[in-house]
């Protein structure tokens, strides 16, 4: 039992020291934002934009290590995969736009996006069945438009 106070002290010191390891939780400029009907855009914005755009609303825990490390890593990786702030760049190459739309459709239809752990902490990111249908309707419309652009 004598070891507990020492262990607790070590954890507190480690957590304190961790606060000095910081990452730049910043938002780069928006280059070419997604264009979609306002209702659909609002759904995508509240469910996806925190991770998949340069308009991240960094939560309070993103300033406290080690949660901040996880949040930073998650957002950086999510932006690499799909960044709505670079959407017009995707549309320059219709094949890339089609691929992004296909992946969005797969992940939204399956319920894999937004991830469960994110939905758990962010109620506003939760999509109802009707919300998902609205987003899927827009994706299918865009897929038809993009398919016509493909050589």
């Amino acid at each position, binding site marked *: 039992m004598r070891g507990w106070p020492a262990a607790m002290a070590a954890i507190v010191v480690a957590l304190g020291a961790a606060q000095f390891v910081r990452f730049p939780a910043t938002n780069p400029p928006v280059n070419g934002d997604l264009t979609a009907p306002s209702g659909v855009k609002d759904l995508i914005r509240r469910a996806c934009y925190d991770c998949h755009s340069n308009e991240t609303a960094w939560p309070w825990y993103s300033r406290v290590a080690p949660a901040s490390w996880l949040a930073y890593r998650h957002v950086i990786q999510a932006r*690499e995969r799909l960044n709505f702030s670079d959407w017009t760049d995707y549309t*320059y*190459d219709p094949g890339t736009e089609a691929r*992004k739309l296909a992946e969005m459709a797969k992940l939204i239809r399956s319920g894999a996006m937004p991830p469960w752990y994110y939905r758990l902490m962010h109620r506003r990111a939760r999509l109802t069945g009707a919300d998902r249908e609205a987003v899927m309707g827009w994706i299918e419309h865009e897929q038809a438009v993009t398919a016509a652009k493909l*050589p």
Partner: protein
Amino acid sequence: MPRRPFLKSLMTAAATGTMIALCAPSFASGGVASEVRFNNGRFEPSQLVVPANAPFAVRVTNADKAAIEFESFELHRERVVRPGETITVLMAPVAPGSYKFFDDFHREVAEGAIVAK
């Protein structure tokens, strides 16, 4: 969804597609289309040099037996290439610099780079 805007979008897309189709050969003949071939689990060549601040295209041929995903986070491009297929990836003008690309289906494969000069 109303039908007219949808038809209008389709017609606009068809017109855009025609323009892209007309432009694609000019990339090939105008010297601004670079070629890269994926074979035996590697990109050849692994480095492409393209003009900076000008649109360009990359023709990607998959000579391997499995599908690949030609991807560049920095250039915002992601395309699946089936075995035996050649695709043309259109690139917007970029600033001078080096931009990595890789096969996202096989991340263990060596990366390539597009160098804009």
